[in-house]
């Protein structure tokens, strides 16, 4: 029997680029029409492709109602798209209020997709056979997804056992109410600025961990929004009730905007579907 010193340790393997083929689907289902896409061995390309609406799951609120969580998957790694509400971007049921986004950022390179960017709250007695369908038309594709109270798609909210993920508490003003979870909080006050002028958007975060992740994005609005830092880790100061953070944003066109902030203890938690908090800020931009 050989001495163990003569046995080499296992070597690492080299992962070479993948091939991927997307198959079209039977006529009864939705299709990514090959005739209207840039054919590529990679499903992700820098531009030219559609936005896929996603149903991330549902949870039950304290009052017994249920929230349907919608996210999206931009097949473009560099191109963002703006799709106004209407025929090309709508929910099937207008009984329920929802902050449907009109701006879709490129596919995030560090986490899987844009998770739960808005919720639709449905009644406690909403049936398992009922649904809210989100439809998006872009790049020549009309794609939709149903939100349903389907038991396998239940998600924990606002905390999850095991990994111990906890949604951060968020305030949009120092003395305002604090909220956590994916239904989110809408800032009470409208922030006013003008085109090209940098404006500061404050938020206060509470979380027991040493740091949390924050991401800022344009949710809706007529022009472009640039952020000084769109995503970052925020060190928590647990000597004070809440840690303040700000985003510096510049708007390219006049009009009314909604800026969305998402915060989670770590972006690694996104794919475990618990738990982040949404916050929405109304920005009025003058010429």
């Amino acid at each position: 029997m050989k001495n163990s010193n003569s046995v080499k340790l296992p070597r690492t393997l080299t992962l070479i680029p993948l091939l991927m083929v997307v198959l079209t689907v039977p006529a009864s289902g939705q299709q990514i029409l090959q005739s209207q896409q840039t054919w590529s061995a990679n499903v992700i390309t820098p531009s030219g492709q559609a936005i896929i609406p996603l149903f991330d799951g549902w949870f039950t609120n304290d009052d017994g109602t249920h929230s349907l969580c919608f996210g999206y998957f931009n097949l473009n790694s560099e191109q963002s798209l703006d799709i106004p509400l209407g025929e090309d971007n709508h929910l099937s049921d207008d009984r329920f209020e929802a902050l449907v986004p009109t701006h879709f950022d490129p596919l995030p390179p560090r986490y899987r997709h844009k998770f739960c960017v808005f919720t639709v709250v449905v009644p406690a007695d909403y049936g398992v056979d009922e649904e809210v369908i989100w439809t998006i038309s872009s790049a020549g594709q009309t794609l939709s997804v149903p939100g349903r109270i389907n038991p396998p798609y239940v998600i924990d909210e606002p905390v999850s056992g095991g990994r111990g993920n906890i949604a951060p508490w968020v305030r949009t003003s120092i003395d305002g109410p604090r909220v956590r979870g994916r239904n989110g909080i809408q800032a009470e006050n409208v922030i006013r600025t003008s085109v090209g002028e940098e404006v500061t958007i404050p938020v206060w975060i509470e979380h027991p961990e040493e740091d949390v992740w924050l991401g800022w994005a344009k949710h809706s609005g007529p022009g472009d929004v640039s952020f000084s830092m769109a995503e970052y880790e925020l060190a928590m100061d647990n000597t004070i009730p809440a840690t303040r953070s700000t985003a510096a944003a510049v708007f390219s066109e006049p009009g009314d905007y909604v800026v969305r902030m998402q915060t989670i203890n770590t972006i690694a938690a996104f794919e475990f579907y618990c738990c982040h908090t949404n916050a929405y800020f109304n920005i009025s931009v003058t010429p």
Partner: protein
Amino acid sequence: MSRLTYQNITTRKMFLALFAGGLSLISATSFAQDQLTFSRDVAPILQRGCQQCHNPEGIGPMPLMNYEQVRPFVALIRDRVTKRIMPPWHTDRNVGIQKFKNDASLTDEEIAVIAEWVDAGAPEGNPADLPPPIEIAGGAEWQLGETMGPPDFIIRSAPYDVIANGQDQWWLPNIPFEGLDGERWLRAAEFKASYPMGKKVVHHGHAVLIPEGERRQVGLARYGVGKSWEIFPEGTGMRVPASGRIAWNLHYFPIGTEVPGDVVEVGLWFYDEGVVPELATNGEILLRVDGLNGMARGQDIVIPPHGTQVLQGMHVLESPAVIHSYRPHLHMRGKVMAMEAIYPNGRREVLSQVNKYNHNWQIAYIFEDDVKPLLPTGTILQFTSVFDNSADNPLNPDPEQWVVFGRRGVDEMSHAWVGITYLNEEQYVRAAAEQAAAQETLTISQ
């Protein structure tokens, strides 16, 4: 009158009648003996292929230990075995390696026996024909206990309270590993969920040892429903340091009942102290099928409603290797995963293909020693996965959803757990010569 007098004729008739009656009796007896019975023909099959799970403490929904237990389910049994839904064994029987150490499948002949027996009314037969009962490990016992004896060492996870209802739960305790006097070499390991409830709520798990002061990881035990143990091939072991920390990774799935304080155990069997096996293995390693270079893992998984998707992943061997097992991993939309070798000379060979993947079973297909793939440096291991998001997929929770990468069962991912031992060139040449000699001997003997 002939010498056949009336008396003679009568006697002759009587003799012929008796003879004919005797023939009939013999024929009837022979027919009865030819008829398939539970006791003689079916029970041995159930012992080999079913009773390990279908016993009072097993994970099967009903025990199948005796005729009274089997009789009410004969139609269901016939359906499941003829469709090869049961026993769970999902390899493609028409391609790749077909000899496995843990082959749970029934032969065509066994299936025919069961079908014919059911079609004939499922007779019990003579209980005296029953085979002796087999020994089955109890639900709380080590499955390897009978062959390996009790474990040399046991590690335990921290207790976890599994909720009754909710999404998948991931429990990641990190616990000190201590108690060994020195480095040892692992021969076998078994991952044992608690009985009875742990076996229902633990979907899969890993116990990975992080040695003190080292960066490597030692995958002591990896579990999925249907795969709980690993015995390394003869002369192969896993180097285990004396101390470190165990990083547990347990995936629980709520089943409608609370399971408080669940603890998972891992039993370790070592080579005798001082014994160093010739070959060092890492056990099962994860080889990804999903993923695009430079991007977050799995962003190439985009499965349309009612649609399918194919993914491929390739891994180059930087040294020779022998593969001893193959365990595909996908989720509810998983349908197929093939492992193919592309040799340095361009020759391609499908080593194994699972074409009836079932998310409820995480089976490790353990190759027999004489057919374990022995691969030279530069071989590409190519994996091809197929997802099925159609309504024809019985496990599909909603074919109208877009499906992307995620950790829940309703999301998707794709990788293979491959039991692999790397060799140096000398070991590879020797192993190749031994395998060739064994195959030549087999050919001659045939």
